[in-house]
């Protein structure tokens, strides 16, 4: 396997050399570097950095682990529009272990994994797809007789950095949705002391995944991350901010129901429960399937798949989620209205009760009627009292 090519050893072809040997022209190589720099939001001078890095650097050893997930992250990645994107990971970095794509099986595969972890200790990148179950001592996800927790903690110990692919690894996704029977946990909750890059989405956009890998190859450092550990280059803006339907939002023109006149006009899907205003991702810019489209462009609201707990924030077709603990589809509005009505009813009842119970205290009191009031003004009598 590719272990022999790990950068801890001197010699061996660089990424460019290997690409060249595989028939990639210089022109295509430069185009790829330019393209990637653009995705990463680098200045035009950054193209040279990417180019140089890929020319000079040798392959990066990678261990790619799969736990509780559906492999849609890998699927997204290998369906990336640009052939080099898939190559860069599957061939050009040294993918030493990945359950889905490796040829080795059983003991061979385990041996590969352990050899990489030993020989490239402190240098390999750990990429994880999927969440880690904590219930029943991790019995819900066992590979080669060991629990996911064991495996990820051992692999993380020697890793240079960790890339958590997709919502499962970043936030638990569907497995962690209530009631979370396997007690699924995202990677950042089970691994400490290592830099973790959360590449969010269900799945993440292929170009975003490639961009993160290229960034790590080029600059050899962790990209700028937001407060939830997501690379800012791709997750600093909301889907809403880059949505081509945004002008309809600001103009207050909304689809009221699917297939109505407004939907045909292509108005904003805000009232159909679109999560764009609370979702950070690049769908509006990079889009999907070679930039063909993205959910909103296809007439469906964003479901917020790059945000934690998006399955629990349902139903997807209303702006307000149902409120936990009050049954399905009970929203903050229904609860608020009920409490507000109760407050008004309570006040009315209290007002009636007050007139009954405090009958003697209300209105004119003995000694207080105008005819009996002492002639001097209150302020003056008060002065007298003071002096």
């Amino acid at each position, binding site marked *: 396997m590719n272990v022999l090519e790990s950068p801890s050893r001197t010699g061996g072809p660089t990424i460019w050399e290997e690409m060249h040997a595989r028939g990639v022209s210089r022109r295509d190589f430069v185009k790829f570097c330019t393209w990637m720099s653009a995705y990463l939001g680098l200045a035009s001078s950054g193209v040279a950095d990417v180019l140089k890095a890929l020319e000079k650097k040798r392959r990066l050893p990678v261990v790619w682990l799969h736990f509780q997930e559906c492999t849609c992250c890998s699927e997204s990645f290998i369906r990336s529009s640009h052939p080099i994107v898939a190559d860069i990971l599957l061939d050009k970095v040294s993918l030493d272990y990945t359950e889905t794509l490796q040829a080795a099986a059983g003991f061979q595969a385990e041996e590969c994994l352990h050899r990489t972890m030993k020989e490239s200790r402190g240098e390999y990148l750990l990429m994880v797809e999927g969440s880690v179950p904590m219930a029943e001592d991790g019995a819900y996800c066992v590979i080669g007789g060991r629990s996911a927790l064991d495996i990820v903690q051992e692999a993380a110990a020697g890793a240079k950095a960790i890339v958590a692919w997709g919502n499962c690894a970043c936030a638990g996704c569907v497995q962690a949705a209530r009631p979370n029977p396997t007690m699924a946990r995202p990677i950042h909750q089970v691994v400490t002391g290592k830099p973790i890059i959360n590449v969010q989405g269900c799945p993440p956009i292929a170009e975003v995944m490639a961009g993160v890998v290229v960034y790590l190859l080029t600059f050899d450092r962790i990209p700028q991350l937001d407060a939830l550990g997501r690379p800012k280059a791709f997750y600093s803006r909301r889907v809403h901010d880059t949505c081509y339907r945004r002008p309809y939002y600001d103009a207050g023109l909304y689809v009221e129901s699917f297939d109505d006149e407004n939907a045909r006009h292509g108005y904003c899907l805000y009232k159909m429960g679109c999560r764009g205003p609370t979702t950070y991702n690049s769908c509006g810019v990079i889009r999907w399937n070679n930039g063909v489209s993205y959910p909103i462009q296809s007439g469906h609201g964003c479901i917020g798949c790059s945000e934690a707990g998006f399955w629990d924030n349902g139903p997807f077709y209303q702006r307000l989620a149902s409120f936990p603990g009050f049954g399905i589809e009970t929203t903050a509005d229904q609860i*608020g209205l009920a409490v507000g009505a109760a407050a008004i009813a309570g006040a009315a009842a209290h007002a009636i009760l007050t007139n009954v119970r405090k009958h003697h205290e209300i209105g004119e009191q003995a000694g207080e009627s105008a005819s009996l009031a002492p002639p001097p003004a209150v302020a003056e009598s008060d002065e007298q009292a003071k002096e």
Partner: protein
Amino acid sequence: MTPEASPAVQPAAAAPVFRRVYVWELPVRIYHWLNALCVLVLTVTGILIAHPPAFASVTEASFSYWFGINRFIHFATAYVFFFNFAFRIYWGFVGNQFSDWRNFLPLRSAQFRQAGAVLRVDVLQATNRPIDAVGHNSLAYFTYFLMFLVFLFQVISGFAMYASMSKSWFPQLFVWAVPLFGGDFALRQWHYMAMWFFIVFTIVHVYLVFYHDYVEGHGVMSSMVGGWKFVRPDMLKGNGRSWFPLSPRSPRSEQKSAPRRPS
């Protein structure tokens, strides 16, 4: 009615003298009404943001911007709301004893005793002994403390959500709230839920002001306009059941609580 129905009334024939006390200083009153205005504007614009009405429009989107303006008003008012709130906290340290911050923190047993008395007298109406509170009563102070916490939550959650739309440094101070709540969606949900607190609070607050003015006749309602309340002199002396026992401390507040004399 119970025979001990209104002990306060008995000596009234002899000395029904109510003293005029300057309770709410001008900054407190300005704070109150500005805050009320902000809450009203924020609630209305907030409900519109959550539930924009359907306008059947035939104009191009570029000719209309009402929803954007609505959001702008919400954000701009949020700033006013925040600084007004911050000012009120400051005033809790420099204002008179009725606006003192110590009233709001439920720390002393006397405060709990009075809050319990308010529950019995005003809420459950089990007895008619008057509550001698010149400022707010203890239960009201606690409620306002709770309200301040909701203010704080609305400020934090609101600016945290706003931060991604702003280049200004101020909202960025609150971005830590986003991971705390798991994301913008959850934060928005809680921000919206808290809005209902303001609506319910307003219902109860307005009712109780009517109630206290109606029953006690201390001029609670007008006190937030002119600052003056009308109380029996013994209420100011702290006779065991009086307003929360912070003795009138600064000479300034002494002067203020004395009626102004045209000189």
